[in-house]
């Protein structure tokens, strides 16, 4: 049954953790092109034996009218592994929150078995539902089958990348913004930017409902939208007592770990000095039955995070400390996003991410371009050296 001997990969079918090797082997059972998974096994085994990959740089392939969503992938050993001479990636834009019905997922699987390798990533790092391995001639049929059923392509290349989000209000008491609705809205709003790469480089948007940041927006999105609130934390003292009775050491686990030392506990009542609270989510996440966020809800907008390429990794910086995300806020958030992207698109060199551009230009030109005032919430500390710019407008008073 096995086309190749794969002793190293077979070793990775042993042990308790689910095995990707088993998944690749299973793909041979369902795909109309079982030679794909077979040759994939053969080539990956060769990589394990020789400690190097055998994939060429992506070529330019895609579907008519789109520049995004399909990543060309070719084996560098097509004579040895003809089944994966073409092994392109097809990115399906996932629904917000990665929710599916079995009916919809099975339909996606049926089409993929017919036109592809039967292998997937559920999901890719950016968030798309990734279909791994198809041929150039199957791309248009795949697109016709999927798009006619409402499944569009995600982003790739120098384009808006597929936005993604946490589960938010669907199943989390801590979401202060409707992260799934914002994500869906942004995705629909930027369809052209998503599908036709016209930016200096990639642009990522991620939305998390609170500072726990389950979608890692602060670490890997050019635009990080993170839920927060204003107003006092609502305390249920009876539930505080239940936590204490249940064995929680409220002093050491909650009060002593508070980032701003704004809590006190006398063995009976838990008190919070809300003016000093930085809304970090530690106490709320540990005492979810006793503590609830304040009632004025919105988001903090941060910008610039990215992985190390080119000049070092960045975590996003605060741009707008608080923006409401009600219906009117949605409009403002969209306009703000458009303005940030426009400033970046107008000023960035090729392959320069937003965070890198801000480092080159400074924060001021961006703040002025989008009409946001300088605020202490945007910095950890003010500058230390007495070198600074003065603009003409600073002299008029």
């Amino acid at each position: 049954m096995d086309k190749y001997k794969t002793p190293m990969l077979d070793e990775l079918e042993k042990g308790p953790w689910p095995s990707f090797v088993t998944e690749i082997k299973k793909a041979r059972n369902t795909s109309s092109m079982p030679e794909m998974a077979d040759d994939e096994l053969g080539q990956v085994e060769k990589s394990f034996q020789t400690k190097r990959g055998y994939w060429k740089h992506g070529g330019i392939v895609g579907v008519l009218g789109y520049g995004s969503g399909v990543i060309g992938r070719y084996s560098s050993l097509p004579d040895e592994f003809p089944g994966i001479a073409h092994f392109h990636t097809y990115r399906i834009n996932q629904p917000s929150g990665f929710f599916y019905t079995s009916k919809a997922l099975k339909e996606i699987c049926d089409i993929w078995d017919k036109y592809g390798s039967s292998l997937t990533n559920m999901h890719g790092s950016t968030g798309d539902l990734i279909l791994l391995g198809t041929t150039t001639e199957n791309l248009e049929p795949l697109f016709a089958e999927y798009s006619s059923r409402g499944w569009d392509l995600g982003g790739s290349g120098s384009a808006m990348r597929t936005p993604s989000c946490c589960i938010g209000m669907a199943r989390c008491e801590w979401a202060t913004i409707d992260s799934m609705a914002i994500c869906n809205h942004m995705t629909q709003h930027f369809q052209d930017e998503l599908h036709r790469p016209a930016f200096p480089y990639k642009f990522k948007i991620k939305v998390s409902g609170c500072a726990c940041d389950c979608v890692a927006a602060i670490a890997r999105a050019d635009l990080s939208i993170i839920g927060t609130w204003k107003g006092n934390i609502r305390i249920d003292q009876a539930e505080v007592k239940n936590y204490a009775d249940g064995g929680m050491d409220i002093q050491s686990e909650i009060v002593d770990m508070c980032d701003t030392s704004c809590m006190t506990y006398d063995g009976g009542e838990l008190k919070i000095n809300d003016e000093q609270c930085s809304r970090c989510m530690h106490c709320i996440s540990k005492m979810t039955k006793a503590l609830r966020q304040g009632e004025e809800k919105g988001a903090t907008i941060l910008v610039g995070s990215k992985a190390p390429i080119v000049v070092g990794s960045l975590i996003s910086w605060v741009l707008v400390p608080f923006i409401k995300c009600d219906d009117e806020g949605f409009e403002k958030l969209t306009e703000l996003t458009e303005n940030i992207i426009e400033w970046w698109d107008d000023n960035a060199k090729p392959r320069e991410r937003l965070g890198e551009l801000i480092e080159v230009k400074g924060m001021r030109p961006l703040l002025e371009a989008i009409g946001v005032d300088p605020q202490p919430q945007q910095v950890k500390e003010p500058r230390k050296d007495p070198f600074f710019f003065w603009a003409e407008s600073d002299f008029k008073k």
Partner: protein
Amino acid sequence: MSLPERQTDVGPPNYEQFLPPVIKKNYGKWKYHEVLTPGTMVHVAESGDEIYTVRVASPRILSTETIRDFCDMAEKYCGGYLRFTTRNNVELLVSEKAQLDPLVAELKEKKYMIGGIGPRISNVIHTQGWVHCHSACTDASGLVKAMMDELHEYFTTKSLPNKVRLAVACCVNMCGAVHVSDIAVVAVHRKVPVIDNDNVGKLCEIPTTVGSCPTSAIRPNPKDKTVVINEEKCMYCGNCFTVCPPIDIHNPEEDGVAIVVGGKIGSLRTSPKFSKLAIPFFYNEPPRWPKVVDAIKNIIDVYAANAKKHERVGEWIERVGWEDFFKLTGIEFTFQHIDDFTFMRDTLRTSAAFKY
């Protein structure tokens, strides 16, 4: 055989059609949740309605056969509703409590691993590796499988001071938030790339190639229509290879992986943190990378023995100091640990007070 009519720019389907009725009804009105076991939890709404979640491990690379199996179980126990987490776990959403135990029983019978909720190790974020990427200098899925075969009890049963987020990136492009993980493996090159001078002029844009280098180590050689690399400046990031394939960065004998630690994403207690270098290099040892797995196990053991409850790896290290991290873990401190890249000046010690 005719194809259906294609549509363009319709975007993803609206998520609302995929939400279980109990979620639709209580959307934005959840009151609290309780972790029932390492792999199950219940969310309770203000209305008193409940939804139960069962979290299952996944290798992320899934065959359609396995996806269908999850779908079948969702139909049997969950009204057909399921989802995936941002860390690629599968979540089965149970609206009727009576269905919870039978679902868990079927999952266990089929040898699926249930867990990952709370102060544990959840699914590992990882990249494509040799399975599907041209720029990989290790295999991501293989490393994850080897690591989690060793650490799986921290997914299913055992607990830690807080959650430990693991990640694997098969090159420094880091498709996945490796740079802000508690413990992560990142593959690195260590040798200056070899230039195929005959093809650079044919396949590459010279200014883009020169501009791709973060250390300005590349200059043009217009006479021969190629580029020259200053070997003293090159830090082997491979970005030149990304924009110009004839500059080959791969060196199977000298490529390998580094381990970074202490990163964190949430703003809880302390600000989000980058992961920092713990161990600069291990050779690739497929299929199971035993030295890498041992090193990660050691860091987790030392963290579990020394951190306070709720402290993440990075918070524990910052409390005791990096001097103590190296002492407690027995990891050797090398020249590679002292930063000499972009943000160097923020990392050197500026105090006469420190530990031995």
